[in-house]
């Protein structure tokens, strides 16, 4: 008689605990959304011109004028692109870490960033004409795919362990970085300067056309990834267990790699190298809300967006009118924050 009652009580407690944990996760995401909107508002109101927050809002609904141009053509594209890039890098990082079951995985450490970058640089240097944007994006994706399939191929050939993939990725990173450097070394002055701009990472050249292309590449695959979040969760238990629980491990690994490559290419091709975000955003999020991918994926996307937007806003206001390149700022704010969390954490998250 006692046992069912006890069991019932036990279940209730578990359910409550679960609800409590979920509540924590949801409130973290709400907090991130609030934070992102706050930083967004600050970014909207800050700039070299005298257009402040009030004017910006007024200008949002105007049809013409300088304030309208500043808000609609300069500040908003920057903000939107920062959010997109941060979201893309963080999501890609989360997926890479899940499918390779490795905390070191990220678009850059896997060499996908370097190869997408090399593709973009190649299109920047050799491409031209009206469709240059498409060429850059397409080539970036092509090279991202090339290196990710190479990594997959190597892994398949030599039994697919996450370690081989990471090693192959690191090799890939060095290879494509060297190729880009070779371009720089052999290139004419003009090409070198285009490449330098790209390696600094910058949101200055971004317009709505680039944003629409990047958002297709970054946002469209996200629902698909969310759908797979249970599979990603099961992968964490190891390949054997995941297989036993009905996950097609090989398939999810392959499709995940392709989708994350597409997202990486979208995040990188128009803005250049913005390092570190893809690696730390998932870790930061995991330290706060744990490893359930249903929450981890959207939350780390938000963390990435907040980081990139904050970095860009700081980069263009701290030392105004001089701009500190965004790639530098992301490391400056990301690394100390990451270390703080690393020191403070009480249990193992990985």
């Amino acid at each position, binding site marked *: 008689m006692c046992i069912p009652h006890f069991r019932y009580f036990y279940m209730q407690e578990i359910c409550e605990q679960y609800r409590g944990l979920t509540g924590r996760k949801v409130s973290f995401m709400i907090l991130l959304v609030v934070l992102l909107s706050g930083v967004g508002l600050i970014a909207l109101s800050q700039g070299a011109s005298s257009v402040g927050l009030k004017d910006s809002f007024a200008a949002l609904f105007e049809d013409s004028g300088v304030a309208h141009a500043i808000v609609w053509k300069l500040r908003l*594209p920057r903000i939107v692109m920062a959010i997109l890039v941060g979201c893309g890098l963080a999501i890609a990082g989360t997926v890479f870490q899940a499918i390779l079951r490795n905390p070191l995985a990220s678009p850059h450490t896997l060499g996908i960033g370097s190869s997408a970058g090399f593709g973009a640089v190649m299109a920047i240097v050799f491409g031209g004409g009206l469709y240059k944007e498409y060429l850059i994006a397409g080539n970036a994706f092509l090279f991202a795919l090339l290196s990710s399939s190479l990594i997959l191929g190597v892994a398949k050939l030599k039994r697919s362990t996450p370690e081989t993939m990471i090693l192959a990725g690191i090799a890939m990173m060095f290879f494509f970085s060297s190729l880009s450097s070779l371009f720089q070394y052999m290139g004419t002055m*003009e090409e070198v300067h*285009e490449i330098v701009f790209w390696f600094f990472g910058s949101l*200055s*050249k971004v317009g709505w056309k680039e944003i629409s292309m990047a958002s297709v590449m970054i946002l469209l695959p996200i629902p698909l990834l969310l759908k797979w979040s249970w599979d990603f969760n099961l992968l964490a238990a190891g390949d054997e267990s995941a297989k036993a629980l009905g996950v097609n491990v090989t398939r999810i690994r392959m499709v995940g790699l392709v989708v994350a490559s597409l997202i990486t290419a979208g995040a990188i091709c128009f803005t250049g190298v913005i390092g570190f975000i893809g690696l730390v955003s998932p870790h930061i999020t995991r330290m706060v809300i744990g490893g359930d991918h249903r929450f981890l994926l959207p939350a780390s996307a938000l963390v990435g967006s907040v980081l990139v937007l904050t970095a860009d806003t700081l980069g263009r206001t701290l030392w105004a009118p001089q701009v500190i390149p965004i790639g530098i700022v992301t490391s400056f704010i990301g690394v100390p924050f990451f270390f703080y969390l690393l020191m403070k954490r009480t249990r193992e998250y990985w």
Partner: protein
Amino acid sequence: MELLVIMKRTLIVQVVILFLFCLSVPGKAITGQDNRMELIKVQDAQGTTLEVRLPVKKLVVLTSDALEIVRALKAEDLVVGINTGIVKDPLFWPRLKHRPAVGRWSEPNYELIAELNPDMVISYARHPGAEMEKKLMPLGIRVIRLDFYKIRTLEKEVKTLGRILKKEKEAKELTAWYQRKLSWVREKLKEVNDRPAVYVESYTGYHTTGPGSGGNEICVLAGGHNIASNFSIPYPQVTPEWVLANNPDVIIKATSLSNCYAMADPGPLRTTRHRIMARPAWDNIRAIKEGRVYVMAGDIWTGPRAIIGASYMAKWFYPDIFKAFDPKELHREYLERFQGIKYQGVYVYPSL
């Protein structure tokens, strides 16, 4: 006994004297040769005083800027080694293109230099690094660092090179020409009060030129007010909004296109200008509204020909004052008189 000792001593003294004499003979011969060689003291671009042994008969020139000055001083024949970039511009260097290349200006191949065994290597003040002296000095090769790309120090450096190459007369001719042209521009700009606000963009997009950069130097020389003149670094990155907020009257874009001398079609420069004019929201900038956006090739932007770039700028800033002046003719005069090649190529867009 005592006599013997004295004799012995004398013998020793004699032997020693003889020995010393023998030693001194070749010694004297060396010093004699030294006297025939002249030692001069010069100051390089870093302000270091160096002793240089004259005459310099074999020269490796690592920078195209220095090579241009060497040619202007009519010392082309001394050049035994050049950088690999020279070979890519054969029309501009008709007589030097076949000299052996010793690598990139920033990373020469020291083995090749050693093989050519020159008396002297000319390079920029900062590139390559100090390792060049470490490698070449023990081989008896003098390294001299002269920039030739800043108008401020150009005359001094030309004179220094003139002394080193014993081409003082040619150096004087060139510096006199520079002085004449510069003071003419300065004289013309004396009465100007209302200086146009100028946004100068260097080779990389949205990177402007602050104090300490060559771009700022020629912009100020040409009578422009560089909107980045109060910055703290030479090549800062800026936001498009900052340019818009400062609403410049003129925009100058430097392009690092190479081979402008061999170029006949202004297409690439036109594309650069078109891209700048199409930047988002920039249609609100005065310079773009009035079409005062000018693209300038790197050849006349910094380097020995910066004065030609500055002349173009002066004409763009003050079209009325410089109505009768054609910078192209200045360029032609420089190329034909000092470089011994005919004028050709496309260097600016739109052309005047």
